[in-house]
């Protein structure tokens, strides 16, 4: 994994809101094709990191580089065009359109057709949209109004949208929140498969430790805005500080326990 080129490098990110240090001095790297988990308790600063990475908020200090190019302070739409797709903690889609149209919008944008006033969108990249929807298992829902989908399906649609620009990097903020346990495992397996096949780097956050330990190549642990541990799943599981933070929640223990039981 370390042989792959550095896709994303984050140096000393800091962002505070008033007196609250949402993120403090966070640095890490992500390689192409690597699946990196960013975990931490509620309010640790995970979403803030994601928002800095895709340009949604501008950090107080620090730098973000994508394939060597500085993206700090660039707009989300510019960063998207550089090959970064993302999903949101609270899914964001276009509720008045059909599922297929949702993906078509992203494809239209990717194809540079946004100011085309004349063509019919219905015919634009129809098959391409269908292929992406099949990929995430939403093919059967293509003509449904997006506003009528179950939340888990909206999350999958979001993944299809995020894949529309053939990203090099996927940012997924709690991709499986609101899903049933079985669905969670399926979605992450799917994501992992796509990432390996297309050599996409994935940064994701997740409260379900089963999902994290099963799929992450490496884990970053964030607590109150600072990184307190980093390493392989085994290393992180063994880290005393991490255990201390999670002990109250019993999550690590549970994860290992369940893993042991299923093995």
């Amino acid at each position, binding site marked *: 994994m370390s042989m792959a080129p550095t896709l994303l490098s984050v140096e000393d990110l800091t962002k505070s809101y008033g007196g609250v240090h949402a993120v403090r001095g966070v640095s890490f790297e992500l390689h192409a094709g690597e699946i990196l988990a960013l975990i931490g308790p509620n309010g640790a600063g995970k979403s803030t990191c994601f928002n800095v990475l*895709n340009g*949604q908020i501008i950090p107080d200090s620090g730098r973000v580089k994508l394939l060597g190019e500085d993206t700090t302070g660039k*707009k*989300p*739409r510019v960063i*998207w*065009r550089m090959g970064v797709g*993302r999903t*949101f903690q609270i899914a*964001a*889609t*276009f*509720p*008045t*359109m*059909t599922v297929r*149209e949702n993906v*078509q*919008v*992203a494809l*239209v*944008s*990717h194809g540079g*057709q*946004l*100011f*085309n*006033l*004349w*063509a*019919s*969108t*219905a015919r*634009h990249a129809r098959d391409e949209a269908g292929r992406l929807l099949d990929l995430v298992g939403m093919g059967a829902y293509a*003509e*449904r*109004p*997006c*506003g*009528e989908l179950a939340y888990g399906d909206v999350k999958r649609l979001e993944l299809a*949208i995020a894949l*529309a*620009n053939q990203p090099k990097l996927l940012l997924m903020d709690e991709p499986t929140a609101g899903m049933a346990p079985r669905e969670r495992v399926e979605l992450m397996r799917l994501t992992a498969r796509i990432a390996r096949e297309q050599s996409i780097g994935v940064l994701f956050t997740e409260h379900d430790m089963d999902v994290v330990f099963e799929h992450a190549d490496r884990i970053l642990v964030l607590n109150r805005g600072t990184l307190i541990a980093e390493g392989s799943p085994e290393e992180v599981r063994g880290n005393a500080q991490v255990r201390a933070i999670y002990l109250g929640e019993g999550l690590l223990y549970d994860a290992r326990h369940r893993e042991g039981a299923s093995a």
Partner: protein
Amino acid sequence: MAFYIVQFLTGLASAASLFLVASGLSIIFGVTRIVNFAHGAFYMLGAYVAFTLTERFSGAFGFWGGIVVAALAVAAIGVLVEMVLLRRIYHSPELFQLLATFGLTLMVEDLVVLIWGPDDLVGRRAPGFKGAIDFFGQNIPSYDLFLIVLGPVVLGVLWLLFQRTRWGVLVRAATQDRDMVAALGVNQKWLFTSVFALGVFLAALGGALQIPRDAVNHAMDLRVIVEVFVVVVIGGLGSIIGAFVAAVLVSELNAFGILIFPKISIILVFLVMAVVLIVRPWGLFGKPEAPARRTPGLTVNPWRPLTMNERLAAIAVLVVAAALPFVAGNYVLTVGSEIAIFVIFAVSLHFLMSVGGLASFGHAAYFGLGAYGVALLAKMAGLPMIACLLLGPLLGLLGAAVFGFFAVQLSGVYFAMLTLAFAQIVWSIAFQWVSVTGGDNGILGVWPEKWAASPSHFYWLSLGIAALAVVILRIIVFSPFGFALRATRDSPLRSEAVGINGKRIQWTAFVIAGTVAGLAGALFAYLKGSVFPDNMGISLSVDALVMVLLGGVETVSGAVVGAIVYKALNIWLVSQTDWSKLVLGGFVVLIVVAFPKGIVGTLEAFLHRRRKSSSAASPVLTSRIETAE
């Protein structure tokens, strides 16, 4: 030097009333999240009631008593309005709230004329402040000095009220977080009612205090509401300090603008507002708006292009409409042309409002600019009609490009207020720049050339252009650009995250809508043979909003139906009654409260339900329909 100081003091005195009204609007908005368009109407009512009380009943209350009782009486009317109307629409999209309170404004305008008559009323001077003070040879009315002191005093009283009373603490808490107050077990209903009453009291007091300075008339509501919108856009909605600072700023700009641009003094205010919007889009003291409640959101029916059968039906309707000259007389044809023109106008607003999610309250500006474009080209440059029709709308395009650039920086209620203010600015220019626009007298003698002069020919011309406009806009709705525009409306977050520059898309949509509106205005100039400032007036902007609403905001082509029904009704109504604003206003309120989906929307919902229930019986049919969508 003394002259400038006096000018400055006059500005400060004008700021007092403006501040009262603006702070009332801000307080109401802070708690209820409603931008109360009827605030100007309450201001006007305050002035009228105070006039009556100080003239007829001055024995009972004295002058000052009359002023205060007038404000209290109007506040009581406000309470009634809140309980009967606003409580029904607190959860409606903000567009509907603006429209409902605008409908109220229309009703009040006619009621005021019914009660007090159409003429200006000159009130008496305030006892004790009748004279003027000599200031190095310049006169300052002593009443102005009173107002200059009053402004800061009211600001102080409001501050004490909000900082030192339990009620004030609750109001501040509700402004921060409405649900929290509900959780505290406070009776939210009455909190809202009392806040509304206070806001209306301030507006009415502002109006009542104007009577020693200005004549009372039935157009003062719109004049003040536009200024107040400018004030809250600059100062920031919801901030009382912001209202104070901006009221002073706007009044001073007005006072000195007259010296710098005597003809078009309002330009200076516009320039300052533009700068503030670029530097601080939420106003000097405002906070970024919470994500807007979606204007659409009554249904989740995805839009789809017409099927072949529907297309044939539309063509059949067009053919029938085109046959009208063979059966109808000249009057009907002229009405038909006017309706066709308003179809163009309505679909242009619909494009901005339903597709783009940007409800413009000043769309008439671009209609009027198109009309003036034609009139100026025809009268001054003497160009042929075809050239005028093609070039005239470009003035609408130009105006939309300039104003749209600023307007799309904002959204929701700010967008509505800003577009209204822009339209009022354009109106003032047409009104004040007499040497070019003819001012109030307008430009006359803009007649079509011979080939289009007969009512039937002009009707065919209008109908043809209307059909073309509808088709072109529909094509754009379903084009990649149309989807990008809807995407920006549906989720600014997601669309930005898939590479869409939402502001640029919305700006383009604004320009398209403005140009098409300009085209409608261009035809209208030829239909009427003249143009007047009222061709860009507020009531025309609202006509367009009502047409879209009546047809159905969430439909693809409801505006066409809305325009036909509304315009026909309107023309008929104006010929039947002198109180068309009263009826119209009541009609607007009724649609908002009882009929928010509009004609086409209701029809669609009905068909959708029927399809759903019949599809339960036949699964084969379902799959066919679903793929058709």
